[in-house]
Structures are given as structure tokens and as C-alpha cells.
């Protein structure tokens, strides 16, 4: 297993290096932060701009290759991912952002999975009955409605609750109220901020898992081995839950492992709407602010997370399916 991991790890490090380098060249040749500088009032002279850029390691006069070598040397020798045009250090910014994204999505990912898979099993066991139709229709609706609209609807709902009660229970945006004292009040404040985005992301997210789990389970409820299990003396529901469930979970496990990183790296709608400045919104902002280093850093983060997802998917498959062996 360790050897396998090492082998896969080396392959992925190489691939991450390639994508990140390609991303850097793309960014360095298309993003021109010097142009934005010129919109300042009073307008700086080109020499001033070039000077200020040079000080931040973003010299516009160097060729892309020279800048690449400089950037790469910084990372390899000092783990320094460079600076933004506004002078901020990417390294410092990055840690905060990742932590914010993780906090925003962690709870909702777990909830999405548990609810989605459970509802999938529940509806498969009641195929074409009223409960199944309601749940599956909802899932398809959640699938179709664009995420931003669903988030807005949840925000409106939360505001409605606040107004009905006549007190502000939920915050619909932001991470926390500044200047809170440590202790009970702070935890409560965090929860009030946390509830709305978590509910919103969960409500939108579980649909795809429910549909997948229901479908894969239905493929297996009439399998020969379920019939064998019933012939041993298990009831239909016992046979399904003991035998069909695990087999049907194999493809679901794999898709889960791949979607988790996608949410971490690409949840910019949720981050924007709920005003949680995480990695997703940062990557979009970086592009609009012509920020070469930040854009490349988010790209690298995305690649790392995807590699982790791929390894995780392999792990998940070997864990639930004995037919797959790691060589």
C-alpha cells in the first residue's frame, strides 16, 4: 500500500507541476497588473508603476520565462508564492482563505453525504411510492435550479424567520460579528452565522447523491445474490440492506471522493453570496485584479486537492470492493 501511495504521489506531483507551470505561463502572459495601476488618481507615471511592480517581484519588463524562473526559484528555495499587485503576500493570504473555505463547507459536505445516501436508500426501498416520488422529484429540482438562486431563496427564508420572530436569529452573510467577547456569546454568534450557508449548501447538494444512490441500489435489489440472501432466510429488506447496499455503494463512493475536492476549490458562488472570502472567491478576484501569483496559487491548490481526491477515490474503492486490489 505504501509503495502504491508513493508511486501515485510521484505521478501526481509531476502532474501538479505541469498544470501549475502551464497556468503560470498563461497568467503571466495575459494578466497585466500594470494596466490597473494606471487607473489610480493621481495617475502614476509608467516608470513609477514599473518600479513598484519590480519591488513586488512582478517586473513587467522581464520575459515570461525569466519571471517563471524567478517565481519557481522562490517557491522551491523559500516556499514563497510571491506577492499580489497590492503588496499582500500570497502565502499569508492563502492560509486564511483555505481555513475559511474549509469551515464553510465541512459541515455541509458531511450532511449532504449522509442525507443524500440515506434518502437514496430510503427512496429505492419504496420505489414509485409516494415518498420516493416526492424525494426524487425534489432531487431533480435541486439539480436543475442554479445554486445561486437556491442560496438566495434560503437567505430570504432566514430573513423571513428573523422578521416573524421579530429578532435577528440568523445572519445571512458574513463569518462572525467583529468585536465579540470570547466564550458562550461568541460560539452562539458563530452558529448564527454558520447555520444559513450550511443549510443552503446541504439542501442543494444532496440531490445528486440521492439520485445516484437510488439508481445504483435499484440496479442491485433484484440481483441474483440478493435472491440468494433471501433464500437463506433473510427478509427482502434485510437482504437489500446487508447485501445490495454495499455493492451499490461502490460507484457512489468513487463519485463522492471526486466531488469533495471540487466543492472545496470551486465553491465561489456560496462564498460570494454568503460573503465568506474563501479560496473560490479569491481565485475569481485574482483574475479580475490581474493578480498573476494569486491566480496561479489557487490553481495549484485546486490541482493538489484533485490529486488527493483521486487517491481518496482509489482508497474508497479498495475499501468497499474486495475485487479491486492495489498493486
Amino acid at each position, binding site marked *: 500500500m505504501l509503495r502504491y501511495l508513493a508511486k501515485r504521489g510521484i505521478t501526481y506531483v509531476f502532474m501538479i507541476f505541469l498544470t501549475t507551470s502551464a497556468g503560470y505561463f498563461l497568467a503571466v502572459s495575459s494578466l497585466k497588473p500594470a494596466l490597473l495601476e494606471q487607473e489610480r488618481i493621481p495617475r502614476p507615471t509608467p516608470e513609477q508603476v514599473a518600479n513598484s511592480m519590480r519591488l513586488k517581484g512582478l517586473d513587467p519588463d522581464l520575459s515570461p520565462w525569466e519571471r517563471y524562473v524567478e517565481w519557481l526559484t522562490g517557491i522551491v528555495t523559500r516556499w514563497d508564492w510571491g506577492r499580489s499587485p497590492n503588496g499582500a503576500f500570497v502565502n499569508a493570504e492563502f492560509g486564511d482563505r483555505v481555513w475559511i473555505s474549509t469551515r464553510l463547507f465541512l459541515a455541509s459536505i458531511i450532511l449532504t453525504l449522509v442525507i443524500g445516501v440515506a434518502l437514496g436508500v430510503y427512496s429505492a426501498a419504496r420505489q414509485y411510492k409516494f415518498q420516493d416520488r416526492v424525494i426524487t422529484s425534489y432531487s431533480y429540482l435541486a439539480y436543475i435550479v442554479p445554486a445561486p438562486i437556491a442560496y438566495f431563496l434560503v437567505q430570504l427564508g432566514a430573513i423571513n424567520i428573523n422578521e416573524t420572530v421579530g429578532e435577528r436569529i440568523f445572519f445571512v452573510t458574513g463569518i462572525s460579528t467583529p468585536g465579540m467577547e470570547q466564550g458562550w456569546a461568541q460560539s452562539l454568534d458563530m452558529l448564527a452565522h454558520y447555520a444559513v450557508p450550511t443549510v443552503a449548501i446541504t439542501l442543494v447538494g444532496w440531490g445528486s447523491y440521492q439520485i445516484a444512490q437510488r439508481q445504483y441500489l435499484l440496479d442491485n435489489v433484484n440481483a441474483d445474490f440478493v435472491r440468494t*440472501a433471501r*433464500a437463506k*432466510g433473510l427478509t427482502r429488506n434485510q437482504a437489500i440492506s446487508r447485501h445490495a447496499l454495499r455493492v451499490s455503494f461502490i460507484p457512489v463512493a468513487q463519485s463522492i471522493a471526486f466531488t469533495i475536492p471540487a466543492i472545496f476549490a470551486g465553491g465561489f458562488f456560496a462564498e460570494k453570496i454568503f460573503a465568506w472570502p474563501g479560496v473560490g472567491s479569491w481565485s475569481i478576484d485574482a483574475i479580475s485584479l490581474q493578480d498573476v501569483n494569486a491566480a496561479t496559487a489557487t490553481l495549484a491548490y485546486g490541482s493538489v486537492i484533485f490529486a488527493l481526491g483521486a487517491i481518496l477515490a482509489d482508497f474508497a474503492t479498495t475499501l468497499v470492493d*474486495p*475485487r479491486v486490489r492495489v498493486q
Partner: protein
Amino acid sequence: MSSGTYLEPADPTSHSAAERLQVAGLYSPSDAVLSVRDLNVRFNSENGVVHAVRGVDFDLMPGKTLGIVGESGSGKSVTSLAIMGLLPPTAEIAGSVRLLGKELLGLNDKAMCAYRGNDIAMVFQDPLSSLTPVFTVGAQITEALTIHNPTMSKQAKEARAVELLAMVGIPSPKDRLKAFPHEFSGGMRQRVMIAIAIANNPRVLIADEPTTALDVTIQAQVLEVLHTAQEETGAAVVMITHDLGVVAGIADDIMVMYAGRPVETGQVDDIYYDPRMPYTMGLLGAVPRVDVAEKTSLVPIEGIPPNLIYTPTGCSFAPRCPLVTDACRDGEPELLPAGGQPGHKAACIKSDALGSDADVLEIFSAPPVPVSRFDAIPRGERATVLELRDVRKHFPLTKGALLKRRIGTVKAVDGLSFDIREGECFSIVGESGSGKTTTLLEIMEFHKDQDGEVVIGGLSNKEATTGKARSAMRRELQMVFQDPTGALDPRFTVYEVLAEPLQNAGLDKQAIRKRIMELMKLVGLQPDHVNRFPNQFSGGQRQRVGIARALAVNPKLVVLDEPVSALDVSVQAGVINLLDQLRAELGLSYLMVAHDLSVVRHISNRVAVMYLGKIVEIGEVDRVFDNPRHPYTRALLSAIPVPDPQLERTRERIILQGDLPSPLDAPKGCNFATRCPVFAALPAAKQEKCLTLEPPLESVPASAAAQTLESGRVPPADQQFACFFPDGELAEDMLVVHETAEPHAP
């Protein structure tokens, strides 16, 4: 199982066994363990109500075996699932099923669970999909024990699981408990299924086509395991099959089903030797026999079984019955006593007239044996249509993702040489994995880079470098495939299917139309059906379309890859007769691959037996089948069940141990040494020879040949085999005779 081997006093299984004895004591021994009365099953389908089972009655006595025989769609599997309560809830089931006097029908799923796997257990057809892939074999056996014996200790369950695996003949059972189903071969998985079924000593064991998906040698092993299981548990067995041979040796009673109804029931000998229903007679006549060199055609049963959506107004067999009269269409005949023997009943108004003196060939007007114009010419004087010289196909076995290392070679075909003459049918037989299909593919490949020479109609693959030469070869040789449904494009009409090869051959429209009409008549299809799609035909008709397509370009040689194995027995006979007739009329040669040796014997002139990529015995079909010299041929032939109960009961059977070895583990000397019954009985000194030297393919030994030459007229026999000790003794423990042998240890 006997109580002697299992004496833990606190053990729950022995307790439940005692309980069962008490329950059984309420009934006299003659009382049936399973009684089915007027069982009816209906399904709602989009087209209407399908009445799948109509009035099945039977009593199963303790320790006896009932064989339920019928073609696909006759309702035999539905009957078994109805008894087990495993039909979908949408099925309407009526009648009565009593197990040890207790009514099972009408019980809900939960209540049925007390019986399923406990008093009544089942073995299913497809062992590959019947075990849960993600659980170990041990866990799946233990589960069956846990369900019905919740208080049994973990150690006791494991001990019992090991005992069960040993009983069904799985080597080193203790280690194999931890194995997953995918690590087992099909035969081994079916053994595990049997182990699960007998885990709780059931009173009734239902086996639904338990060997249909398996090779003949493995089938013999599994039937043997079922026999042992029945002896150990004393269970009554319901054996469901389409193969009249399989049940001939092991059943006490037979029930023949047709269109959802039992049409004839009785003791096994009465059914086989004195059938009183034309359908039974036809079925028996439709099966070729492996043990007789017959010179008669098979009995074809024309037509297809009725659609069960419509309530029959007369005998449901009437549309296919050659003896039909108007009276037959007037109400369904009852199942009434026939033939005089107790228990023998037939649902036919003419059963009294159908004594044992009735000639089934005459009744069904079987066609006369076709004679080819080549039959009179000695083989040596006929032209060669196909010749293989030392053809090899080795697949490298590699390991590693990026840098492939060769860790071995799979010798799928290893040095094959044979020839086929005009007007001859040459067959290749062997287990799956022996290289039969690869041989066909190598012939069809016909490329100059192949290892070995393939000569088709005088054209060698070494010379055929241009596309033109290769397409000329395609006109000489055509192929008929195993699965007629998969081999025909569902979006093509029959006309388009048949026109395609003719267009390739460059015929004009007029000529194509004319040829297609000819072909339809030739294969016995109605010419006005050319605009139908394949799904509007039955399986047998589809195979006829496949044959017509192969014949379209007038080939000399037709390659038949398992041409009838996907067809029902009664339909199969018609297709075999057609092939026989076409060979004679058109002077065709066939190269056939088949696993059914009875079919091979019936249709072939010469036969080659393959084992692990090599021919181990080759020769004239009657010689090889009547006097097999290679131990493998002998084992193969003895493994085939014959539809003759008396013969089947006393026949000596060679049960090969284990499965076909992986080609990687193939021994250095004789490939067959690992499973050989002769080798096992040889003294160590002689074994050495088998292990180190590869036996060459040679004619019958010099002494025997000399004798035949001395007598003058007889030419040297057309039979070659590859074995050093063809006359060696067979190992005792691989021989089984049921009637005379004492109950042997597993």
C-alpha cells in the same frame, strides 16, 4: 448430516435437528415432505395477464428426487420460486404448498423466512452472480447459520462452515473461508452455493438448473456434490432442468412441463421408456445420444411454445403436435393415469394409443438421413478445403503499469495441425479455456504474420498479402455464431442482413433479390418474411437467418461456433437436421466448435479433443467416441449424462479433480498430468515420464495397428492421441458408479 460427527451438547443445530425429527414423527414416513396442489401463478404484464404456471400438483417424498423438465418458458423456474416465496409481490399465486404439513402460501415475507434456508433451501442457476461479491465465502455461509441459529457460538459456526466446504469438496476449506467469490471458479462457486443451501440440513432442496452454466466435467463434479449433499442431509430434492440427461441418473420421479402445465408425470423409467404424451416423446427423440453411433435424424418439434397470455382452449401442444385431431382442440386434456404404472399420468387424449411400440421418428416425420455425394468417396481422395500447420497463438502475460514486464506466456493455441476435406464435418471439443474459440479466431484472422500456416481452399495465409486475396478467402469461408440474437443487427431487416454479403460480393440488385429468396427457402424460412426484423423471429428461426447469411456467398467451408447451444432442445433438433441436410445437398464442409459432445457425435465425421491449447486426441468420430484412448477424452465422454435412466445409473463415471489449470501453471510434460486419472494411479517411476516428456500425437500403437493390417482389408485407423499410458489403470477415487458403489465419503 449424521449426528455422530457433531456432538456438542449445547449446540443449537443438533437441538433443531432433534426438533425436526419430532416434527417428522407426526407424519408417517410415506407422507410427503412437500406437497403442491393446484399451484397457479399469474403475472401482470403490459400485454395482459401471463398465466405462467397452471395447476401444478406434486408430492415429494423424503429423500427422493423429483426432476422437473421443460423448455424455457415452461414455468419450471416460476414454480420453484413460488414454492420458495421469492416471486415479486406483483405475482398472483394461488393453490397450496405444504411443507411438512404446514401451508406456505399466503405467509408474508417475514414468516417465510423461518422456512427459507432452514427446512427448504435452493441452489440457483448462475453461480457467477449468485454470491455477493463483497463478502467472503465464509461470511456468506456463516450468515445462513446465524439466521436460523442465533445462539450458535462463533467457533461452532466456523467449524460448521469448514465442515460444509469440505463436504462439497473444496480443498483446504479452512483457508478458503476467507476467500472472496471472485477468487473461485464457476464450479467452485456452485459448490459454495450448495454448501450454503445445505447448511441447516434442509428437508427439501430445490436446484434450479444448477449445472447449466458449467462445463461437462464440472457439471459431473457438481452433480456428484449434490448427490453427496442429499445423502448427508437426507433431503428431498427438486431438480429443475432442460437437460433430459442430467435427471435420468438421479431422479426418482419426473414431471414434464409445457406451457405452464405438467403434461406428463411418472417414475423415471416410465417417462423415459414408455412416454405417453407426444411432447415427451418428441423431447426424448430430439436429444442426440453421445453413446450410440446413430444413423437417424433427430426428431424436430416444429413451431414454438404458445403465448401464455391467451387462455388455451384446447391442448396447448396441439399446434405443434403431429398427431393432432379436432378433438385435441376441444378443451385442455386432464392429467390422467396412463401406461398402467402407478403414478404415471399424461395429459393427452391419445395416451393409450402411444405405447412403447409407437415410433417417434415416424410420428414426428423426421427427415431421412441425408447422404452427401462425398460420402461414397474415400477421405484421402477428396480435396482439402482447410489445412492448419503448426498454428500457435501465445499471449504474453505482463505486469506493471508503465514498464511492462513479461512474467509468462499463455499458450492459448499451441501447435495445432489438422485438415478438413470436402463434404466433411470436423469438430473441436474441450472445456472452456481449452483454446477452441482462439483456434477459430486464428483461422478467421488469416494474416501472414501469424505463427503457423493456415491454408483455405489452396490459399495460404503466407501468400495472402493483398486485400483482394483476403476477400477471396472470405468467400470460401463463412461463420455462424453462437448467439443468434447478438449476431444479427436488430435494426436490419432479414433482407438487409442477407443482402450485405451479396453486395460486398458485387452482385446487382436483381440477382441479390433472387438469391435471398433462394436462401430463405433453403434454410426453411418463409420467403415473404424477409422484411421482418430479427426480434420478430424465434431463437431457432434467428439461427436459421444466421445460417442463411453464412451461405449467401456460397462458401465451401462454414465455421460453426456453438451453433445450437443457445437454443432449446426441441428447436435445436430442427437446426441440427438443417445443418446435416445442407452439408449433404450443397457439399459443404463444417468446422464446428461445441461443448455438447452429443451434438458433436451426431453431426460430425471427425473430431479433435483439445486440452490447454493442444489436441490430445483426434480421429474419426465413432472411433474416438467408442474407443477413446486418451484419459481426458475418456473423462469427457463419461461426464456426459445420457437420457437413459438404466444405463445412467450403472455407468462408470470419471470425475476429474478440480478445474482446468491456469495456463501459467501448465506442467512441463503432459498438460493433463495434474488432473489425469491414469497419472494418479501410476507408480512414481512412470509418473516421471509424464511430468518431463511431452507426449506426441501418435496413431494407435504399432501392435494394434499391425493386427488390423494382418487381417487385411481394414485400412490404418483414423485415430491419433497424445498419451504414454492409454491403457493405464484409472485411479479408484476418481471413479463413481452410483448403483453399485457404497455411499462414499466426501
